[in-house]
């Protein structure tokens, strides 16, 4: 029964995709609005049942979970690939996030995409995305994960370029796809190395065999680094992050679901899933932590000077993902997963609220041309404010607890790192409140036409917002630390998944007692509050509107506005040389060498065929003669010679 439910979870979104994709425009919109979100809702209900079963098991102290084999895919030689799912607390939790948040965003899309010509196509792609994301999360071996991994990449590409008549959007889609491919190459190589090292790609076998390796073994370090390259691409970390801000070309629900709540967290999930391997490779852990920290700061700094509402959120996503990797790199797997979950709530909320703003503003995304929307869009404003407070890390909202968990584990490793990480958090508070104030406070800076129909979106869009706001406020409950009177449920729930990795990790350098913890939390909160006030005084009290002229005067601001010129740098370093190289390849290799060889071979084959075909004369006598020649040749060859 349980196996059946598990198997059915990804089936429904796939069905939805097939129906909507094959039926295309023949299916009426009403029905499509039912099928699109409906299939995800069914998956959510099934995931919830599975989650309850797993949670009940974990309360009883279950330490191992069965693999659900759907079918034996192929067997050859020593390689046996089975299409199977593995549901443990980690994937059960991810299932809830993917289907739950996914469902809310599907519902929201009914309103947001209402007047779009590609309505059915949109839901078909979204369902396909959910399907692949579920495959990624549920797979019982790295290959199944890779299928999902590639599949979500494909859907991301299709949805970024959803409005394909705009060439810029297509370019953004291509950029996302290519950047991801670079990472995927690492993932693929990592998989090959995994297979040659462990002789299997199944999680259970790999993790079991990994226990026999000593920490710091070269091959495990290589595997984890290669896999991490995949995570860097998918989760938009330095140096492969530049695709994510451009990915905002897609419709806003896509940004919310794929480029904030779920797909981009796949890298985090993958590292958490492979926790034992990473625990065996301290060098990789350092790389992960450093990459995460640097990305967190870097993206936060860029976000301060951006003016596109979705791009700010995109950079904040990169930055928050950086915090998750920081947590992973320090061995705080549960903390990273906790932040992943709360981030899914509040970032989906922020994006959807931003979508509501963009909807009301007729597609305007520049916050310099907004202002004063608070009174016209009260519901959007309040939900956005909740999201902002949550991401800024003010208690008692969810983001506070999850970020604090990562920060305190940073503190136990190094005080300097902690200071750096907190600086990033302060920047987050600043740019998010800058965004909030510029959008919702002050005077309206748009045009008259926008002003006339400035109002909150319809209920079908607002209800998901309100639910997500509720989750953002209360989501911290799942892992309330003992300090706040909780029982750290997530820790005990996920504990068995990370049980083998925990003893291998470096212990804390500093001991964190309750008093220190209170102190650290207090300091953080005070500084965050200060940042909010600073933002308020700049953008509300003095009502400063960022403009080009003032920015250009300060070199720091100029660099940050131009995002450290990374896009230009990549263009110079990689894009142009490869374009040049491909031109050379085309002109010399392709036309002069390959074409000639291929055409020559083709001509040869055609000539040979032309000669042989004349043997087929149609005369029986000739045929019999040829056969007798053959018979004599065979007998001569075998019997006489």
């Amino acid at each position: 029964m349980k196996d059946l439910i598990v198997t059915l979870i990804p089936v429904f979104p796939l069905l939805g995709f097939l129906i909507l994709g094959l039926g295309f425009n023949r299916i009426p919109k009403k029905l499509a609005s039912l099928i699109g979100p409906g299939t995800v809702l069914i998956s959510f209900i099934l995931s919830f049942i599975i989650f309850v079963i797993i949670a009940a098991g974990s309360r009883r102290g279950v330490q191992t979970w069965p693999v659900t084999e759907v079918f034996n895919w192929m067997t050859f030689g020593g390689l046996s690939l089975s299409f199977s799912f593995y549901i443990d607390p980690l994937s059960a939790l991810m299932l809830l996030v993917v289907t739950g948040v996914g469902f809310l965003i599907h519902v929201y899309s009914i309103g947001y995409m209402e007047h779009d010509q590609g309505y059915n196509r949109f839901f078909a792609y979204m369902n396909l995305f959910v399907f692949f994301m579920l495959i990624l999360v549920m797979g019982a071996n790295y290959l199944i994960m890779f299928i999902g991994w590639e599949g979500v990449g494909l859907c991301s590409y299709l949805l970024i370029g959803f409005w394909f008549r705009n060439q810029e959007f297509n370019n953004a889609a291509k950029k996302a796809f290519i950047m991801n491919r670079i990472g995927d190459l690492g993932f693929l190589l990592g998989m090959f190395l995994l297979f040659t090292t462990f002789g299997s790609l199944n999680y259970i076998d790999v993790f079991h065999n990994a226990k026999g390796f000593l920490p710091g073994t070269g091959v495990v370090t290589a595997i984890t680094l290669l896999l991490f390259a995949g995570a860097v691409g998918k989760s938009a970390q330095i140096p492969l992050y530049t695709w994510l801000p451009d990915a905002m070309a897609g419709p806003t629900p896509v940004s919310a679901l794929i480029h904030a709540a779920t797909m981009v967290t796949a890298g985090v999930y993958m590292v958490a899933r492979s926790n034992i391997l990473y625990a065996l490779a301290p060098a990789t852990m350092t790389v992960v932590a450093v990459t995460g920290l640097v990305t967190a700061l870097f993206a936060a700094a860029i976000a301060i000077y951006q003016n596109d509402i979705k791009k700010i959120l995109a950079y904040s996503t990169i930055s928050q993902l950086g915090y998750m990797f920081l947590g992973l790199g320090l061995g705080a797997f549960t903390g990273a997963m906790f932040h992943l979950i709360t981030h899914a709530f509040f970032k989906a909320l922020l994006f959807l609220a931003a979508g509501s703003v963009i909807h009301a503003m007729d597609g305007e995304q520049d916050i310099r041309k907004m202002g004063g929307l608070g009174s016209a869009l009260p519901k959007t404003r309040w939900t956005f404010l909740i999201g902002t407070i949550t991401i800024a890390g003010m208690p008692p909202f969810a983001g506070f607890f999850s970020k604090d968990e990562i920060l305190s584990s940073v503190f136990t490793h190094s005080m300097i790192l902690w200071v750096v990480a907190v600086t990033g958090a302060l920047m987050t508070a600043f740019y998010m409140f800058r965004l909030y104030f510029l959008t919702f406070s002050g005077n309206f800076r748009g045009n008259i036409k926008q002003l006339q129909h400035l109002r909150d979106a319809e209920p079908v869009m607002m209800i998901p917002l309100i639910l997500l706001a509720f989750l953002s406020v209360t989501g911290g409950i799942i892992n309330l630390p003992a300090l706040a009177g909780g029982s750290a449920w997530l820790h005990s729930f996920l504990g068995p998944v990370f049980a083998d990795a925990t003893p291998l990790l470096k212990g804390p350098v500093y001991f964190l007692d309750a008093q220190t913890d209170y102190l650290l939390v207090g300091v953080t909160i005070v500084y965050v509050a200060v940042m909010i006030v600073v933002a308020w005084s700049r953008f509300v009290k003095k009502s400063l509107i960022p403009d080009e002229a003032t920015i250009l005067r300060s070199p720091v601001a100029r660099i940050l506005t131009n995002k450290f010129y990374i896009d230009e740098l990549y263009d110079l370093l990689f894009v142009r040389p490869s374009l040049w190289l491909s031109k050379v390849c085309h002109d010399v290799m392709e036309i002069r060498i390959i074409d000639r060889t291929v055409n020559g071979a083709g001509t040869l084959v055609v000539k040979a065929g032309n000669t042989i075909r004349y043997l087929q004369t149609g005369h029986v006598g000739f045929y019999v003669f040829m056969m007798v020649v053959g018979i004599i040749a065979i007998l001569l060859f075998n019997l006489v010679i």
Partner: protein
Amino acid sequence: MSTIISLSVLGVLILAEGLLGKKAWHLPTILIGLLVSLALTLSGWNLNLHYYNEMMIVDNSSVAFSSILIFTTFLIFMFAGHYYRGVQRPLDDIYAILIFALVGSVMMTSFGNLIMLFLGIETLSIALYVLAGSHKEAITSNEATLKYFLMGSFLSGFLLFGIALLYGASGSLNMDEISAYTVREAAHLSPMFKAGLFLLIIGLAFKIAIVPFHFWAPDVYEGTPTLLTAFMATVVKVASIVALFRLFSHCFPAIRETWETTLWILAVLTILVGNLTGLYQPNLKRMLAYSSISHSGYMMLAVLAFSARSADALLLYAAAYSVATVTAFGILILVRGAKGNDLFTSFEGLGRKNPVEAVCLTIALLSLTGIPPLAGFMAKYYLFATALEKGYLWLVILAVLGSAISVGYYFKPIISMYLKEGEGIKLEAGFAYKTHIVFLTVLTILLGLLPAFLINLL
């Protein structure tokens, strides 16, 4: 055994219906009868029954291959209603002879004695001579039957002579005893035995249409009524290859060196000549004839690389090849019905006018080419991999080269359908016919995605 009995009863039943004049009953009876017989065949799984002093041995491999033959016949009969619509003459004879031909092919997959092999081949062949000429009014059909009969009876002589020589040398027709003889005498095999062996190869090579004994195939395929050509290209082809495989894997593994080189050369010749000549064919039917020749070359790899796994690979290959070929013939029948010919020019514009049929034909041809993720690719992959395991590197390289050449002709109809503008007559496929074609296409895709269902059977 129950398979042969049930099929024979089915054939007689059709004749009886013909006597009663119940023409409309034929197809339902046949389709149900084939399914019943398929079920009876499958019930023999794992039983490993031996009949009449080892004359017939129904082991798992014969169950699996017989099932594929019966199933393919079933698939072909699904087209029969459409193909023979409007035909006034009674059809009981054609249908019954087809069923009897199937009986012969089933015998070729489960013989335990060379006499049974010969009887199977003759049951099949004589039925085919009649079927090839079953369109009495057409001169091409008459030509086909005459050519086939002349050359077929000529080569049957070689087959029988070969069997006689083997008997003379080893003193037995029983496969186990011949096998024991080869083990005993492997070092100093008598010339008589060797001559018998090669005459046997020659006889079978003719039935399979292996180069240079393939000349009959294109002419006969072209003249034979299309529905029956589909039967020849799939059921007959698979049965003959399986007979060769069964014979060599049971009787002659001990003297591999003796026959290895000859079969190697024949396989390479078949692959190259089949594919090269295929490039020059003006119409789909002749092209499929050459395609079937080159595919018998690939399937000979399974005979050469005999191992436990090559039986699996051959099974998958036979299934993939049969399904894709039947699909192509199904659409060929439609186009011939609408246009009166099957020149590639007749396919122009089909992509827009008949998207479903065009896509199905495309997938079938891609599968025959061996493009992933379709069944044909998986089948080729497993087949080539088993051959590589046995060290046939060059053979595999040449086979892959042959596959590459085959792209040249498999893509011809695809190009015509999609890239050439044409008036594109609407094909008159009924709903059932269309559904059947789509079903076949889904099979091709599923076999490619989930080869494990067939690959671990034997």
